[in-house]
């Protein structure tokens, strides 16, 4: 595909804290829908975006039980993006910063991701058409 591009996203925020995580996932999702290759370097709190132990909850304030609330965790969204990539032919290479994972005890991530280091971000940068940093503010 002539216009098949490769984008790298650097994420820094933990999930559920602000809208930047949602924005990042929307951009990644759109790129994957277009069949573009996407690299993600999950840095600092962003290693929790795909943390496997995230658990959905009911919402009594809204009168929702667990099923009605259908609370989407970010790990499910990441898994959905990976599944979408299978369908569109996009390659998603999602790297969890290993030191960030260790200091947070966040080693359990969903399948399809890998542990890495800043050297992976160097390689991503060289192999990408562009890099977008979405940093904690």
């Amino acid at each position, binding site marked *: 595909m002539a216009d098949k591009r490769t984008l790298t996203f650097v994420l820094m925020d933990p999930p559920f804290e602000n809208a930047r995580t949602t924005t990042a996932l929307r951009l990644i999702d759109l790129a994957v829908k277009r069949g573009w290759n996407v690299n993600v370097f999950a840095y600092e709190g962003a290693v929790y975006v795909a943390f496997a132990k995230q658990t959905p909850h009911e919402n009594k304030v809204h009168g929702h039980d667990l099923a009605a609330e259908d609370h989407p965790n970010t790990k499910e969204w990441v898994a959905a993006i990976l599944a979408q990539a299978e369908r569109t032919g996009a390659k998603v290479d999602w790297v969890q910063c290993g030191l960030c994972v260790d200091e947070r005890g966040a080693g359990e991530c969903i399948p399809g991701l890998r542990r890495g280091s800043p*050297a992976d971000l160097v390689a991503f940068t060289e192999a990408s058409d562009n890099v977008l*940093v979405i940093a904690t503010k």
Partner: protein
Amino acid sequence: MPKKILQVVESAFRATLEEQDDTVVWLTLAMRGAGGEFGVLLRGNAVNTAVRGQDPSGLAFGDRALRHHTDLAEDITRLIGKGVRVSVVAEDLAERGLRTEDLVAGLETIPRAALPDLFEKFDQVWHW
């Protein structure tokens, strides 16, 4: 030749105590070690990163003390020693009552008006 990246650091002292580093300065040092080419621009509150004589030692919670406190100025010096061009926005220094002589050696102080020319020297600009 690797792509040249300008790291624009604007948020100061972001998690520096628990990380014992500035997250972006650390990342730049690590990526530089892996072969990347970088410049660093300190702007806004992040100009304080380069001030000499900072001493955040002594933090302890109960009997758990922080053994290795952050030394941001030393990390900036290390960056410069590794061939990374580190720039500081002159107006951001002045607004905070800082002078160039308050900073570690080897920094470049540039006016805001010169930022577009600085950006042009890099393939990508990453704003943290």
